[in-house]
């Protein structure tokens, strides 16, 4: 059993990088990637926490799978919107969207 601090550090790092990506990137797809990173951090935390406890329902794993599913659904919607944005504006630069109406 590996020590818990390593995965936890990874969780923190992933979340931080994801958050940074969300804030710093202007390209919508890159922002989505940031979100994915954050979600995977959450998933990792679920799994990590799930391993330490003796949950008969396997809560950690189950929730992680939920999470992945939701993320997939989200990304599909997100990509659809991004495509729509691209069609409407010609780019997917988040810092320019909504500028003029």
């Amino acid at each position, binding site marked *: 059993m590996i020590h818990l601090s390593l995965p936890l550090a990874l969780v923190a790092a992933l979340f931080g990088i994801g958050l940074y990506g969300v*804030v710093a990137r202007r390209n919508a797809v890159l922002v989505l990637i940031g979100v994915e990173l954050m979600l995977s951090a959450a998933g990792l935390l679920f799994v990590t926490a799930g391993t330490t406890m003796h949950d008969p329902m396997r809560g950690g794993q189950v929730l992680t799978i939920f999470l992945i599913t939701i993320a997939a659904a989200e990304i599909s919607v997100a990509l659809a919107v991004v495509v729509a944005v691209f069609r409407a504006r010609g780019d997917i630069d*988040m810092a320019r969207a*909504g500028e003029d109406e």
Partner: protein
Amino acid sequence: MITTGSIQPSLLVVAFPAAVGVLTLLLVRRSRRAAYAIAALGGLLGLLSAVWLLSQQMTGDAAPSPRTIGALPTGGSFAMPLHLQIDALTVIVATAVALVSLVIQLFTRWYLADDPRYRVFAATVGLFTAAMQLVVLSGDVLLIIVGWELMGWCSYLLIGHESDREKARRAAYKAFLVTRFADAPFFIGLIALAVGAHSTSIPAIIAHWSTPGHATALSAALICVICGVAGKSAQVPFQDWLPDAMEGPTPASALIHAATMVAAGTVVLSRIVPLLEQSDPARYVLVVVASISTVLAGVLAFLQNDLKRLLAWSTVSQVGLMLLALSILPPGATPDLAIMHLLSHAMFKALLFLAIGWLSVLVGGTVVPRMSGALRRHPSADTMMAVGLLALAGVPPLSGFVSKDLIVDEAAHRGAAGDGVARIGFVAIVVMVALTAAYCMRAWLILDHRTIAERRQAAQTIEDSHAVQEVGILEMLETSAPVDARGHEIRPVEPGPEAAVDELEVEEAEAARRPPRPGRSARWGLATLTLLSVVGGGLALAPVIDVDWSNVNGWLIAATLLLMAAVALLVRVMSLGTIFGDAAARVPQAVRNSGLRGFGADTAYVNLVGRPVLALARSVAALDDLLDRGVRDLASDAWSLSLRGLAAHNRRPTTGLLALTTGLVVVGVLGVALW
């Protein structure tokens, strides 16, 4: 004996004059006759009730403390019974007030014969009388305040009666404001007395404060009350409203000066005289105020160029004497001396004012040039004038003599006994006696002056005071053409001699429209006043007034009489060769000018109180604008905040994400911190 059932004559004494006010305003539309009927009837009934009350008092049947509107429910332990308090002195004063008021009502009918506002005037006089009666009969400080303030208000209305003239408006405003200003401490003083006693009833207050142990508080409260009294009675430093109040019609002046307003201070102080006698500081304050007032007013009376103003100042002086009489009382004494003088003063002063009013109607004004020789032309009033002036001067055996010399005697007596207050008072009284003799003599000499032709000439240069609006007669003199020693003009003046003569004729024609003398009833009233001025001194013998007339120091009286005679002689000498028979013409012009202005008291009021208060008001208004703007700025702040908010919300998704992230950090930190 009339039954003393539920109807108390003491209440009627107040109610009838008040009813005059109310009924006249309610019922009468235009009819002068109806207004007169109500006024005369109300005044008469008021007098009859007063006499009824007097008779009750004599027989001992009077209810000592009748209730009025019932005790005020105060929700606690504070008693406000609002009772009257009937005793011999107050009943006599009430009778005198009722009498004077009645005569004035009768006289007014004639005096204001063609005044469209006669109705209002009569109503106000009624109300005024009621207020004074309330003060006189009150046994409760709240009732005193009620009557006191009502009188102030009525005086405002009466003085400003001829409100078409700016001078009258200003005089009314000044009279009310000055007295009201003095009323602030008066209120506080009475409130302090009442709160200390947990009751507004005067007997309770006297009982409470008579116990030893709160001398300082008592003195402070009394000094406050004295302040108010000084205001109402036109004593220094509030003296200057009274001469200005001469802008009112003469009957109003008679009412204010003789029986009501200015005398109210004496009445109130005499109510609480047992407390005054205990407090030396208060007595000192009172004697100083009264002494300065009585002397100063005597000087000013001598310097006036208008006989009504002369009488006004003489009132200040005489009221000063009454207050002096109160201040020199030994502990345990009753205020009969002061009340005695109040009564005689009421009679002769009312007489004087009405007589002057009569003359002024006939000659068209009260300034010296107009009045000069008035009695020569219209001798019908000369008995009244003579009696009035003699009584005022204190010539035996008239009423003024009796009351005044009793005070002189008491002051000398007490001063000899080592009372400092009485010594101050004595000196002041002596000076005042001389001054009184001087101005009385002066007035008589003017009225009785012979050289009508010269008067007539000079009159061409001077407009009637009615036509003089903003500028006083003084300024008019300054700007009018100089005359040589014999009264001939050096240079013709502006409107031209014809115009001036025309004007005189017009006015005389106007005066001719009313009968040349008051109606019979009014003349009867005047005669009564004259009679009382002559024999009023006999009241000292009456059992209801408790004065010590048997042990009077005859030498002292002789000395004062000699002094008076000497002064009178001097004045006579001074008046020789003057244009109008005016002794004051010998006084340097600068002093007279200053005297006409009351030695600048008005300017002092304006500069010391009026201007600073207005400046303060302006700065407060400016401050409030700031406050207001501050509140408004809050709105515009919100407005500009929203503008800034709009700039921040640039509709870009990245900005939203940035905000979101910041929010996350803030929430995390705050959440953990606030937990």
